[in-house]
């Protein structure tokens, strides 16, 4: 399984309406609900918010990766969101976030999925990937950002 297999174009938004951190999380979680990944929208939103309190998922470089692990999640999924104006996310570098990945996994995920998610997280640390994501305006652009990266370690 590869990163492109876990990115679903139905769960990609290129013009998030949200303007605050709270709103962004809400908007991303609702996409999960719309696609049948979760039933309990509020429940999962609380889980993501709780994780956020432990420490911020605004990793800087304009990217944020809120995530939640819970049995409310039916299958491992990733929601991709882009905000044109940027959102104050309380990030580690103090700058706003423009690119969001909401990661949702069930309590006992199958290792295969977890592995791919780990790959995704790792890729975000590479500048080339981030640059391509910043320019992405279609689902193919997003997928291409990840597949181009040399995954040697």
């Amino acid at each position: 399984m590869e990163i492109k297999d876990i990115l679903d174009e139905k769960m990609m938004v290129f013009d998030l309406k949200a303007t605050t951190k709270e709103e962004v999380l809400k908007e991303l979680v609702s996409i999960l609900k719309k696609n049948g990944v979760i039933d309990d929208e509020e429940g999962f939103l609380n889980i993501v918010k709780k994780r956020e309190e432990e420490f911020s998922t605004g990793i800087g470089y304009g990217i944020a990766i809120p995530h939640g692990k819970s049995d409310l999640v039916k299958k491992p999924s990733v929601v991709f969101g882009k905000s044109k104006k940027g959102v104050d996310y309380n990030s580690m570098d103090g700058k706003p976030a423009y690119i969001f990945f909401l990661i949702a996994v069930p309590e006992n995920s199958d290792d295969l999925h977890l592995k791919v998610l780990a790959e995704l997280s790792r890729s975000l640390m590479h500048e080339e990937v981030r640059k391509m994501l910043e320019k992405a305006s279609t689902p193919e652009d997003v997928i291409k950002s990840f597949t181009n990266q040399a995954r040697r370690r």
Partner: protein
Amino acid sequence: MKKIVVVTACPTGIAHTYMAAENLQKTAKELGVEVKVETQGSMGAQNVLTEQDIREADAVIIAAATKVDKSRFAGKPIIEVGVEEAIKDPKSLIEKALKLEKPTNYVEKVQEIHQERAAQRTGAYKHLMTGVSYMIPFVVAGGILIALSFFWGYKAFQVEGTLPWALMKIGGGSAFALMIPILSGFIAFSIADRPGLVPGMVGGMLAASTGAGFLGGIISGFLAGYTVVYLKKLIKLPKNFEGLMPILILPVLSTLIVGLLMIYVIGSPLKNIMTALTNWLTRMSSTNAVILGVILGLMMAFDMGGPVNKAAYTFATGLLASNVFTPMAAVMAAGMTPPLGLALATVLFKNRFTDEEIEAGKAAWVLGASFITEGAIPFAAADPFRVIPSIMVGSAVTAALSMLFRIELRAPHGGIFVIPIAVSNPLLYIGVIAIGTVVTALMVALLKKRVA
């Protein structure tokens, strides 16, 4: 090239764990530093650091939001940070790690381990150990003063007014006599706080006077402690009279209950047990003595200051109250050979140890000589399956020999400092310890692999 090993860990374990790992790996490559990162995420531990990895590392970075077991990194400079730091600024993190000073203070580390263990004790074990820890200084003071009085001859103390007589009065008549009451009293104190002292101490005195010995003291301590706890729960007084509880009601009732139980119920059976035990121990055949020595030796070395070690130690110390002195000698010798043997091994067989271990070996001489068995822990932590069997064999041999020669020790602690005073046959005892030390060193050399 410098090498760093890292562990990243985060509660949810799906993102930060891996991002931290990736960032550190990327940055290390840029800095020309070799790095191996173990991730502890949702999938479990991946890329697990091997013994060799840790050995070769110059520093350890733990970037974790959850508790990571540090015992495998004993002896390495460690820097612990939150996961975000590894993501935010890996470069300065790596630089900081490489600049860290090696923990050269081996003795401090052993003390740290001591304290950690003290903090971890719970329940009945904790209560017992509290009592024992208060008791030991009494036994040390008493035992040594008694031994001093023997300088003038074994019967010298019987002549009233002389110095040996005074020493025996202080050591045997007073310090030693307080041993069991203190043990009992502080076991009770640990359980029930201040109100436990009275029934505990009184119960202990009764244990001593009825011949129930240190076993009786342990029982009376727990009995007293829990009696107070239950009395507190059962008796509820109106607010105005509450002050009477600790001053009048608790002391009287608890002491009455414990006292009566000790005299009519517990005293006699325990006295019989102790008498039987003491007789068996003093009249033991050589074969049985050696077997007991082996068992005590194995126990002392097995967890170096942990519960098993303490059980053997408490057994031997408690017997001093019943005038049985041979297990004590065996136990102390068995507690000295692990650090001494390892120290000797670092001198004779340098190629089995890392530089840090060789440094640590120097301190181990002192720790071993002072009967601080924990001095062996850092070596054991780094290589448990080879070190622990080795020290167990050495300790078993030394304890067996000590029992075989019926060497006696009247003080529960002090290492070489008490040998000239409190041991029945100092030169032979030193020889026995020396043999155990050599055996330990040889075993270590045999089992351990050469270090690159």
